[in-house]
Each structure stands twice: as C-alpha cells, then as structure tokens.
C-alpha cells in the first residue's frame, strides 16, 4: 500500500515554512510552551522529522494527530446513524451519546487550533467498507460493532501518544487525558455491546485480540499484546498470579503514526 494521504498532508505542511513558523510561534506564545526535549517524537517519518527538528510545535501536531482519529470516528458514527435498520432501538441512545462526546472533543481541539493561530485540521472523506473488505459494515450490526470497537481502541491508543507528546503543557495535556478517559469509556461500552452479539470479548483488550478481529483490523492491535512494562515482566509479577492475558489487558499500549497511519489508510478515501 502506498503512503496514505494523512502522512502526505503532514509532510506537505512543512514546506510552507514561514507561515507555519509564525503559527508555531503563536501557539508557543499563547500556550507558554517550550519544546519537549523529553517528549517522544510523534511524527518521525524521515521528511517530517527533519523539519520537526527545527520547530517547536509538537503540541499542534499532537492535536492534528488526535483529530485524525476523532474526526474519523465522527464520520463513522454519523454514517451509521443514516442507516436506520443498523442500530437496534435500545442502542441508539448509546451511540447518540458517543457521537455527541466525540463532536465535543473535535470542537474543543478545533477551537484550540483557531485560538493559537494554527491551520484547521485537514478534512477527509472515508470508506468504511475499506474497499469492500467489510461490505456489511453498515448493514450487519455485529460487523458495525466490530469496526466500532476497533476504532475506539485505536483512538485510545493514539491518544496515549497524544498525552505523552503534550508532556510540556499541563493544561492541554489535562484536556487530552480527560478526553482519552471518555474514549476508553466508549471503547469499554462498545466492546460490551459487541460481546452481547455473542462475540467473545471483554471491555479490555486481550493480547492483540487476534481471535475476534480479522484482516486489516488486526493492524489496530499490533503491539497491544505486550506483557512487559519498563523492564518488568508483568506475568506472575512478584509472585502474584497474573496471567499473560491479564498482563496485556492491564495496560493500554500507545500507537504511534507508523502503526496508526496504515491502519487509518484502509478507511480513508481522500
């Protein structure tokens, strides 16, 4: 698969150096931010990284990264709501609530970008059948739920990266953390709804969820299966009876752009 447009968009932002630099200064000025020496690079693609090395807008880039998944989720649920036979009546309120929360998250980030003189996030169109890999995503409830909870889990994982990349800014980071908690609540709930369709999953991610997820969706869980944190093996840690399953469930792993972009590319048209 060729590099997807998300990556291209990000790379394309760098040549407009002067304007962007001004914006970057603005976000720094307005937010009182200093470059995070300790922060994990979010966008480390060769072209982008080179440019990033000279700039200090890791916060704005973290917001774009956050919006890339939040906007995708909004489009997904919005489209689902237009299929009246898809979502059972007793779950409509749940997805209405989830969509409302996500729209509020997007509006919040959009507003931060505007207030700090940054360009708005790119607008995309989507194909949630992934070129017909999931032809029934909006006609079979179980298929819809499976993609829904995968997007939710990917969102939580991407926002882990967002939070860490906002380490220099307490206010923005606090908002990202609070949004992320809500996303994890959504993820837990959608996984419960999936479970109610007799699919054997729990509200937390077990390993890389390989037993319930197929094809392209598996990319959303790569790296989630780890059972080591820092230098500590979590399985039976300190003699406690902790299984490999529990060890992987107990920590939501971050997802950087190398993993997220190919995954999102399956569902992105333009």
């Amino acid at each position: 698969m060729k590099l997807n447009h998300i990556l291209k968009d990000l790379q394309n932002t760098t040549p407009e150096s002067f304007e962007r630099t001004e914006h970057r200064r603005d976000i720094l000025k307005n937010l009182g931010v200093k470059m995070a020496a300790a922060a994990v690079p979010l966008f480390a693609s060769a072209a982008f990284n080179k440019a990033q090395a000279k700039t200090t807008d890791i916060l704005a880039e973290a917001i774009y990264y956050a919006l890339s998944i939040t906007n995708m989720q909004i489009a997904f649920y919005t489209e689902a709501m237009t299929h009246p036979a898809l979502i059972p009546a007793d779950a409509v309120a749940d997805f209405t609530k989830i969509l409302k929360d996500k729209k509020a998250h997007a509006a919040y980030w959009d507003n931060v970008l505007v207030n700090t003189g940054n360009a708005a996030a790119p607008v995309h169109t989507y194909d949630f059948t992934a070129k017909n890999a999931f032809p029934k995503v909006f006609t079979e409830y179980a298929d819809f739920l499976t993609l829904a909870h995968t997007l939710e889990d990917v969102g939580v994982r991407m926002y882990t990266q967002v939070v860490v990349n906002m380490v220099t800014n307490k206010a923005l980071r606090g908002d990202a953390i609070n949004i992320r908690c809500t996303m994890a609540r959504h993820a837990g709930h959608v996984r419960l709804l999936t479970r109610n369709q007799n699919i054997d999953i729990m509200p937390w991610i077990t390993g890389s969820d390989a037993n319930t997820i197929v094809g392209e969706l598996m990319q959303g869980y790569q790296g989630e299966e780890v059972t080591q944190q820092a230098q500590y093996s979590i399985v039976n840690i300190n003699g406690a009876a902790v299984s490999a399953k529990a060890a992987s469930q107990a920590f939501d792993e971050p997802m950087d752009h190398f993993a997220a972009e190919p995954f999102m590319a399956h569902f992105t048209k333009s």
Partner: protein
Amino acid sequence: MNEKITHDVEVKESSALSRRKFLTYAGVLAGAGMFIASCHKDENNSVITPSDAVDLGSSDQGLLNYAFLIKQLKAAFYTQVIATPFFGMTPTEKGFFTDMRDHEIAQREFLRNYLTTFAIPMLETDFSSVDFGLKSSVYAKAKQFEELSTAGLAGVCKLMSFSDNLLYATKINSVDARHSATVNDFITPGTFAEKTDSNGMEQAQDPQTSLETTRKFFKRTITGNYLPRY
C-alpha cells in the same frame, strides 16, 4: 541493570526538580521551604505529618505512590469480592470481577517495582463500610472506586513531569476507565460515560481532592501534603 539505574536517576531528578519548583513558589520562605520539602516519609519530625502517618512524597514519585495506593485499594477490594462472593453472583460477573482484580494486582505490582525503594509500604485497607455479601453494596463500592480511580489517575497524569512516568500512568488510567464504564453499565445499562462534562471530558480530580476519599479506606493515616498541585 542499566535501565534500572537510569530509572532511579530519573526519579531522583524528578524529585530534585520539584524541590526547586517548590522553592520558587515558596519565595521569601525559601529556607523554610527547603526544610519542608526535604522531609521524607521516613522522617517523623514534621510538624504537619503525624508520626504514624504514611506520606506519599512529592513530585512524580509522590504521584506514582498515590497511583500505587489507589491500586492497593482496588486490588484488595476485588480480591475480597472474589474471595467472599455476594449472594447470586453469576459466572459472568465472577469472570468480570476476576479480570478486574487481576488488572489491579498487575498494575499494583508494576508500580511497586517501578517505584523501587521509593514505594510506600503495603497498607491495610478498611472495608468496614462494605457488605461483601450484598450485591448492591459491592456494586456501589465498585462504582465509587472505579470513578475515583479514573478521575484520580487522570489528575495524577495531568501533574506528572516526566514522559516515561506519564506514559505508564496513562496506560493504566484508560484501563480504569474501561472498568468504570463496565461497572456503570452493569448497574444501569447506558451509563458508561454519565459524568462527562459539556466538552465530553472526564472530570479529573486533583490528588488533594481524591485523596480525601481514598484515605478513608485505609487504617493508617495517609498524607499527601507535598504532592504536586493543580
């Protein structure tokens, strides 16, 4: 081994940073500030901290200890829920509570190791307000603890200074949120995110606020006067 040394250094640096910050804030009281900030949990002479109290410490180390304390609470709670199941607990419920117990134990032990010698001791819990034989009592407490933990760790994450420490606390925070959504849904379906604000956000609690609740479930006095504040 190298990694471990690096980690220790980081914790110490973080502590030093916080002291500097504290001194800045303390301004003219720099001398007094240095005395207060240098008080460690093992030093019992502080006028503020009762001599039998356990102090969580300061800086990232204190925040991690607070996360460790919350994990002690929840691990002990779910361990008891499984050990003395309430009347009528279904196999499904038992499966969920067992998973949650194991997550809490895994996170607790990880934090204990991660904190190395800075970890507070294991503390005895006080669940005298819980009737473990009664489903409604167990669910009510599970709901309270998960909400406390989700909002409390969100506050911890907000205050963390170092990326690595922030990363591990964040990884744990969202698993708490998954727990909380689950417990809420078990009590009343559809209440998975009932307390989000108008921005769709969790309402994080700063440690000073959530500790007021957390400490009630431990027998020893727990103080967190030197924890970072909002």
